């Protein structure tokens, strides 16, 4: 009985803790306390770079998509799988980013 109660307390506590961490990060990003300046620009020229923009878009789309699928998968006994083609697309995007960064920032 007590052990089960402890488990329930941990469940609620870890959920609240995780949400608090996310809120803190988001709040500090939004308020500028975590530096986000220049995330899409080259280190050398300071110009907007396409390889950075495409990786940001692919990352956000992929992450939001996985979050939606994952949360609608509640009750399952496994994390939702990622199709190989999507993984390859992500790999290509990240490869393009690294190549662009190597070539000129």
């Amino acid at each position: 009985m007590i052990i089960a109660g402890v488990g329930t307390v941990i469940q609620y506590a870890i959920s609240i803790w995780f949400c608090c961490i996310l809120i803190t990060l988001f709040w500090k990003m939004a308020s500028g306390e975590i530096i986000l300046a220049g995330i899409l620009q080259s280190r050398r020229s300071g110009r907007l770079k396409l390889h950075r923009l495409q990786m940001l878009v692919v990352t956000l789309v992929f992450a939001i998509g996985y979050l939606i699928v994952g949360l609608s998968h509640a009750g399952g006994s496994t994390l939702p799988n990622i199709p190989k083609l999507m993984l390859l697309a992500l790999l290509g995007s990240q490869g393009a980013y690294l190549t662009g960064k190597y070539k000129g920032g």
Partner: protein
Amino acid sequence: MITGFWGYISAAVAIGITLVILGMAIAVLIALFNGTINLKYLLAEPADPAAQQAAQVAGGNPQPPEIPKASLSRFQFLIFTFVIAGVYLVLCLEAGTLVQIPDNVVLLLGVSGGTYAASKGIKAATDTPPAN
């Protein structure tokens, strides 16, 4: 239902471990919130030495100014880590047991971490002046 000596011992240990872990979690959260753990450079990488030197000359300041810039590789690593950790946490709480992680999800985290490491390597290589 607790029965016997060892039942009380195990309950005390469970409560003790829970309190210690919760205490650590709360301490980390408070430190993050009040700035004891500085998050300013969580996503930033050090300035390009050439740009820093140019700004130093332009500003006439003997101390090199700090020109940090956010890193996209750090940002995507953070996003993927939190998304997968969050989904895993939700599914575990729903199922009441540890859920399985497919190979492709592990691969995704590997790709994300690999990109971060490669990005750091590229930056270190481009910042190092060529040897004569």
